[in-house]
């Protein structure tokens, strides 16, 4: 019961923060709301017993990625954004029926899908060894190939970000002159 109450608290927190993310004008406030939403979601993970994912959510998302956003905000003049209107009103209104349609579809899939789902056999292991260990062992055995591919994707993303974000070297300017 306590678990449910904690879950509800975190959920409400996450949803309020999400509303804040999409409504506030000033990018600095937006990033703070996003941070708050991420922390709340990490809390949801903890209540669901997924300690590893929750911890990584805090470490990677709430620290690394959020800090990264702040860095970028310092690089671009966000003050300009405050002066202009921060939202497109027409698109926002147009997207409402779309989002409702998505909700409807997700609801159908989720609530019809629940009845068709199998009961997992891993629960016994989770209770015995703890969630983190089981996730780790499955990740490094059954999904090892996928894990390697993801690491490759990260590497490529890093190289791509460096290439895109760096200042153009001298040779490029030589070509243009």
């Amino acid at each position: 019961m306590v678990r449910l109450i904690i879950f509800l608290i975190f959920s409400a927190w996450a949803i309020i923060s999400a509303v804040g993310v999409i409504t506030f004008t000033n990018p600095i406030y937006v990033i703070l709301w996003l941070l708050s939403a991420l922390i709340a979601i990490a809390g949801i993970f903890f209540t669901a017993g997924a300690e590893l994912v929750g911890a990584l959510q805090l470490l990677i998302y709430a620290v690394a990625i959020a800090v990264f956003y702040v860095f970028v905000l310092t690089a671009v003049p966000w003050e300009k954004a405050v002066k202009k209107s921060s939202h497109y009103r027409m698109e926002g209104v147009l997207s409402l029926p779309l989002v409702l349609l998505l909700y409807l579809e997700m609801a159908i899939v989720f609530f019809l899908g629940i009845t068709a789902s199998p009961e997992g056999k891993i629960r016994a292991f989770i209770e015995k060894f703890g969630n983190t260990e089981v996730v780790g062992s499955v990740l490094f055995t059954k999904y090892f190939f996928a894990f390697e591919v993801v690491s490759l994707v990260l590497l490529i993303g890093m190289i791509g970000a460096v290439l895109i974000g760096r200042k153009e070297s001298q040779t490029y300017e030589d070509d243009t002159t």
Partner: protein
Amino acid sequence: MEGLVVLAAPLSAFLLIGLLGRYIGDKASGIITIVAGAISFLFSIVVSFKSLHSPVQIKLYEFLPLEGYTLTVGFYFDALSSITAAVVTFVATLIFVYSIGYMHNEFGKWVYKFYAYLSLFLFAMLLIVLSDNLLGIFFGWEGVGLASYLLIGYYHNQKKATNASLEAFVMNRIGDWLFIFGIIATFLIFKTLDIVEIFERVPTTESALIGLATLLLFGGAVGKSGQLPLHTWLPNAMAGPTPVSALLHAATMVAAGVYMVARLYPLFESAPQTLKVVAVIGGLTALFAALAATSHTDMKKIIAFSTMSQLGYMFLALGVGDMGGAMFHLTTHAFFKALLFLAAGSVITAFHHRLYDIYNFGGLKKYMPITYASFTVGALALAGIFPLSGFWSKDRLIGSYYEASFVWGLLGTVVAFLTAYYIFREGFVVFHGEERYKKFSEHEPQEMGAVMTVPMVVLGVMAVVAGFFEGWYMHAVGGEHKEIHLNIALTSVFVGVLGIALAYGVFVKRFLDPERTYEALKALHTTFKEQFFTEKLYHSILAAGYMSYSKVLYLVGERQFIDGIVNGTAYIVQSAGQGLRFLQAGKLNWYALGLAGGFALLAALLVFLIYGGGY
């Protein structure tokens, strides 16, 4: 774990040279290749002794978990695979040493690529030999094909070499195509690709598909080993550097086909009809290639046809049920064929890679004594003269043929005669007689340096003594030891001596004038030389026919039909685009809206299909 070093050494040499070759230089690259080959050889010896009586299977890594079966990367060391690995690495290392001398005058022209390819070649071959599953073998199979393509076309500024490499690639592709279908069929039958598991399941599996599967697998071997009808690439592959030819023909590429059939022999044994096909193709190729070899004059092509013929022998032996004998002949053949190639290469190097026709040499005996001795030892071994290694292995094979059927035995004897004749024809023309090369070059040829002669001498020693290990080898591999049939042994030695005598009589003593005989038998000679016109058939009818067919298709199908569709589509799209231009406002958010809308519609469709349509 020693087994992994066998594979890792050439692979790391390949990576090291391939990535850093430009900085470490050509000579260092060669030395790295040699060291890697030597390490690989030493460890394969260790592994051989360990796994001789108790096979070891190493599961290295689960590559791809699938429903019901997990693809793994693993290696299987038993007597057959580890001894073959030892032979392969031994011969390859000697050839690497030799290649330093052979390529010496090219150093500075990015020869490191050559050594990288050589290491890749060795690695791929070891992958074929040591893999414990068919997919691993296929990986090595393709790697060998790629490396041979790169090496045959190494002199890429010569049209001949690039054509030959392309031909080898295409011919191999036909074989590989059959091979992968064979693998798929095997998987369908046995639900596994692991060879150990396949062997376990063979006795309990009754399936009509086994015949088809083995036939397809054998198709792969035909392509890789240059048997009829996929043989034309093998003689043309001589366009590559001579160490490559030696490697290709002695230890690695062409041996892969024979080895694969021997490796999967329990599978083949359960399909007797396939074994008959194997025997027929092997026997025909043995005769065919021996006849072709009698008429060619290119120094290396004669030896190439000889390889084809000997591989035909091995396939015939596999077909009549003598797996141990075939593998033993493969081993001895690796020694003396590498020896012959290295000797030929040293003659070619002596003339600075300009002369290839045997009638342009002559009388080299006194200038190049070590090469002469090596060539003679190799030729004697090839001809099956007592007590060299060729005698023991070949004799066993011919004995097996006679046990199977008199026709095969007779064919074996005839081919033995032809073998002795053509190889000594080459030897006598090149090393005896008048010094015809004086028309082409001023200075006298010289013996090569130690870096080239030492590998030849070592291989020569092996070619002499390898035959005495027959009993040991058979015991290890599991074939039964056969006593020499005295009458067969005497017959084949007699026939071999007869062949040598004929060559001696014609080309040294000139009892028969070769020129006049040539005039008299011109039609026959041309038929043999053109390989019974198969090469012409492939090149001018199949390849050229395909070319003209493609041209017609290009003009009619491509120009009229496809271009019409493409241009029409372009026109329709253009006019539609003019109409829909207003949607492309260039605003990111509109695109996001469109994306989400499309996704929602798709999801709605999916939901409708799954939950509404009873799908």
